């Protein structure tokens, strides 16, 4: 039997793994008035996740009371004097810049490596090794961030201090950001970038893998039948067709990179400054509000400031997340499980 359906547009094929479109039909299947009513009555239950998101935002908004911290709030300076002697300055942009310095390179590295992983698994590896390596990648995703943190701090940091940093400076010292003083203990942005890269990879790789896998086989075969090599099919057909899903993966990784607090706090050296180079200790928005909260319990103005920082982080995460969902239309969270797919 011929299945006479329209040609799947590749973007759709790449991005809708869930059978969501089936839902309207299902409801139409018993379209009695009573069931409609029940549908609307059921809505609050279906919207529980929305309620939780709203509750989180509401509590943070309430706690920050949107206190006006002055124009310095969006500035690059941060100063807090527990004794209250000098006026405090809470500039969130300092931390946003620091977050970008760490998350940006980590995301770039992770995206590139994830793409390599995704292409290898989907195109080049036979099924059995492909499955095994996918399992290992998922394992990488499951390792708690504190474990990355302690490994980074105890095992990697000394190595970064004695070897990795000097070597990198030796080769790339002429580039801005790669020269200048090293960090003696090895903790700093570079180590944080390294750790974050590894933590982001499994997520981006999983979503990229699914996007590439969902490229219609028809397109791939058409490319091969024209005498293209596997790599040419990847570059000219697969990557094109999966573009949206791939961008979705990058945004999802960005969300993870920006939001990670504990592992970064353990390896970045916790120094409130815009670092002169990649080696020096620094901080990030998420890690700062994590390790600073216990100091804030007795200083209401600090607690308010940190809560507003948390709000900023929440806003950034929301924007990144929504952009990612929009880019891919993909159900990224579920894809990562590898489960539920036929």
């Amino acid at each position, binding site marked *: 039997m011929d299945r006479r359906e329209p040609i799947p547009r590749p973007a759709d094929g790449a991005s809708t793994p*869930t*059978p*969501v479109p089936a839902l*309207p039909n*299902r*409801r139409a*299947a018993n379209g009695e008035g009573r069931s409609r009513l029940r549908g609307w009555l*059921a*809505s609050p*239950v*279906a*919207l*529980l*996740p*929305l309620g*939780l998101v709203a*509750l*989180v935002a509401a509590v*943070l908004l309430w706690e920050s009371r949107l206190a006006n911290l002055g124009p310095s709030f969006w500035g690059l300076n941060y100063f807090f004097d527990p004794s209250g002697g000098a006026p405090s300055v809470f500039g969130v942009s300092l931390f946003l810049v620091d977050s970008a310095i760490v998350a940006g390179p980590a995301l770039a590295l992770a995206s590139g490596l994830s793409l*390599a*992983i995704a292409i*290898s698994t989907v195109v080049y590896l036979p099924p059995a090794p492909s499955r095994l390596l996918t399992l290992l990648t998922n*394992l990488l995703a*499951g*390792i*708690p*961030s*504190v*474990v*990355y943190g*302690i*490994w980074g*701090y*105890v*095992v990697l940091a000394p190595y970064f201090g004695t070897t990795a940093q000097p070597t990198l400076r030796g080769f790339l010292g002429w580039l801005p950001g790669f020269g200048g003083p090293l960090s003696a203990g090895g903790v700093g942005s570079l180590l944080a970038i390294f750790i974050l890269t*590894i933590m982001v*990879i499994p997520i981006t790789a999983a979503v990229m893998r699914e996007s590439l896998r969902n490229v219609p086989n028809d397109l791939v075969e058409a490319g091969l039948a024209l005498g293209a*090599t*596997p*790599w040419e099919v990847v570059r000219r057909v697969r990557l094109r067709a999966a573009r949206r899903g791939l961008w979705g993966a990058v945004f999802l990784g960005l*969300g993870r990179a920006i*939001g990670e*607090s504990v592992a970064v706090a353990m390896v970045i050296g916790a120094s409130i400054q815009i670092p002169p180079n990649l080696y020096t200790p620094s901080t990030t928005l*998420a890690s700062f*509000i*994590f390790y600073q*909260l216990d100091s804030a319990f007795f200083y209401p103005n600090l607690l308010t400031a940190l*809560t507003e920082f*948390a709000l900023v*982080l*929440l806003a950034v*995460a929301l924007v990144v997340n929504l952009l*990612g969902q929009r880019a891919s239309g993909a*159900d990224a*969270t579920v894809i990562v*499980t*590898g*489960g*539920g*797919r036929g």
Partner: protein
Amino acid sequence: MIRDRGAGPTALAADGAELAAVSPRLRHRLRLDGIVRWALLGAFAAVFFPLFDMIYWVSVRAVPKFTLATFTEYQVGNAGGLAAMIEGTFVLIGLATAFATSIGLIAGIYTAEYAPPAVARIGRLAGNVLAGIPAIVIGYFGYFLFALYTGWGYTTLGGALTLSVLMVPFVYRTADLAFSSVPASQREAALALGARRHQYLRRLAWPIALPTVLTGVFLAMAIGLGETAPLVYTAGWSNTPWTGLFSPTSFLTGAIWLFYEQPPTLGALLTLAFQAAFLLIVIVVALNLGLQWLADRYRRRLRGLGA
């Protein structure tokens, strides 16, 4: 333009080598394909080096020092074991899984089965948004709501509730997916036979959806198990035996966070941190294998249904 294709025997002899005549351009393209293949596989392999390095070092630091006391004794000062953290982790994860599963499952079923399409869409979007909220933001939320507003202070219950907020979207989205994936034919057949919606759900959809739902629950557990930030300011810390829902508790990830900066010379704390890390890795591996097993099983089941 028609190419000259002599049909005579000479022409044929020349043609015989057609498939062997690899032009320089094609040779270049094939070589590029080979290089890219090995480069990509190399990058792939490079990613696993850190994983193995980490597992190696954590094992080296943790395994030789494991004794029975590690599991049975409570940490006091610079000595003792992980008993309190293990207890606390089990209680926290158990409670949080129970909360997250009940909320996520119900919301997921309603989204898949009852909600109007527009509402379902918003629900799914919100589920993904919730999964994308940084853990530390959830931590602040939990601190205000469960430690301050309730007046409980640091409690096991507060920690578990905070953790469950983080876990809900994973159960929710997989439950939704599981029930949405039940083949429409099955559902229509059941409803056509006069089955009520809840009968259809219980008798037909539930057995099909169960493995996927379990996948989501396992995943949520793995997520919850690895979190530190939401617990530090909600569950607090306590290295004594666990006394109840309204008392603070310790947990494995917390042990790492608290002890990772201790010099190795100073007693057993750093070792305890590594041992906690080792235990977490073991549990995560077990959960991952469980997940994989469920996913395979589910796939086979779906195939059996011809879906």
